[in-house]
């Protein structure tokens, strides 16, 4: 396969964008910025998908994420004590372990990606959107429909979980804020 120089350039640029914005998600204090940095990361990946000839999937990814990230921002603002990030804060635990785990998984996966030999069978230059449509409503219709049923089940389940009033009265009846003990080491 011989992708053009332009594809290389675009993929590199969007790739750097996806990685940097993904990193900034965890480096910013403002919850709104965190949510929308994540959206920038998704948009960059969607753009890479478009460069890789999967236009429909890339655009659908962007379309889906714009709504989801706004909902995420609303939830972040709801549940964080300092959503606007007007004061600096660090809300992390086991920081070193996670850093090691993150870098380690990156190194292992990147090593696999660079070292392993993959077959070279590029996608033919036909309309991939039409092929996807044939697949969705043909051979793999059962999988597609199962995804739809799963989403319906999730809608019902999510409402049941999050509803304020259930069979046993108010969900928040008698709830009290648990105390935080930051020193976690010696707990009996």
């Amino acid at each position: 396969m011989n992708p053009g120089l332009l594809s290389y350039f675009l993929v590199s640029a969007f790739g750097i964008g996806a990685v940097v914005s993904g990193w900034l998600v965890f480096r910013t204090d403002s919850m709104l910025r965190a949510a929308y940095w994540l959206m920038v990361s998704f948009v960059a990946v969607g753009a890479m998908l478009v460069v890789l000839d999967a236009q429909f999937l890339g655009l659908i990814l962007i379309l889906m994420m714009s709504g989801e990230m706004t909902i995420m921002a609303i939830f972040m603002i709801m549940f964080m004590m300092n959503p606007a990030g007007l004061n600096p804060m660090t809300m992390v635990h086991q920081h070193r372990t996670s850093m090691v785990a993150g870098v380690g998984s990156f190194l292992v996966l990147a090593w696999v990606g660079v070292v392993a030999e993959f077959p070279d069978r590029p996608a033919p230059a036909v309309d991939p959107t039409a092929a996807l449509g044939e697949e969705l409503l043909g051979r793999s219709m059962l999988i597609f429909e199962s995804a739809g049923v799963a989403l319906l089940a999730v809608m019902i389940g999510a409402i049941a979980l999050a509803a304020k009033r259930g069979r046993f009265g108010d969900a928040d009846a008698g709830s009290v804020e648990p105390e935080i003990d930051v020193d976690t080491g010696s707990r009996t």
Partner: protein
Amino acid sequence: MTTLGIGIQVAAMLVGGAYVLAVADRLIGGSGSNVRSAFSYPVKRLSFLMLQPVTTTERPDLAAWILAPSLLLGLAAVGAVSIPIGGPSPGGDIPAGLVLFGAAMLIVLVAVFIFGWAPNSVLPMIGGYRFAAMVLSIGIPFSLVVLTTAIPAESLSVGTIVESQSSLWYLLVQPLGLPIYLITAAAIAFWGPFDLPEGTDLAGGIVAEASGARLAMWRFARAALMVTLSLMGAAVFLGGYLGPVLPGWLWTVIKTAVLLILLALTGRTMARIRVQRFVWFGWVVLLPLALVDVFVSGWVAL
């Protein structure tokens, strides 16, 4: 056509359309203004806003506040790029142009939410929240009626959809399409009667703290968004550049202007509805109607 040519075309359409919209809005809604002053009103208003100092608030998210109007304008431009204006483009269309348009129009939610959040002020933030509730309840009908036009055309490219209307406009083939599209488009552009994010009950809502060049930019971006939405409505429901005698680009301009004036008229003459009732309307009325539209079109296509 070259990329530069398309860029110039889109910019001309957006600026011209914004002017038409502003004049129509002034003629319909401006009380006691004569016709001649309405035509110079957009320029006067723009000069006034550009000379006005830009006020600020206590600790705003300044980067987001500056970014949001540009983002809105960029989204309007991206949505317009996929629409053929003067005739079939020789270089070929964007393959999934309709999906590109849909994605751009749903990211408008992000731009408005950021613009409401950024001033660090209560009323703009409530405006942004209102807009989120509105767009999440009409986003699905909006996408459905736009994508339904792809069923008879058997293509997601806007150029092919326009070409397939050479015998009959989709306005007549899918009678539910254009009304639902115009209602949801007015809501996505927070244009009256759905200008709840900017409602007077919120003292201006998302623009309560905006002034000067920032407000001018925001107003222009919103007008450009209206133009893009009307362009797409003209292309997929009114046959775009197809028409007798006159050149193609003129037909596009005429149809877009008709939709813009229609939107200006309804925006100024219909009563605003509360956001709760609008959300109810979106889920209970528009969504089933949009699904009927899809089913009927699919049935006819079979």
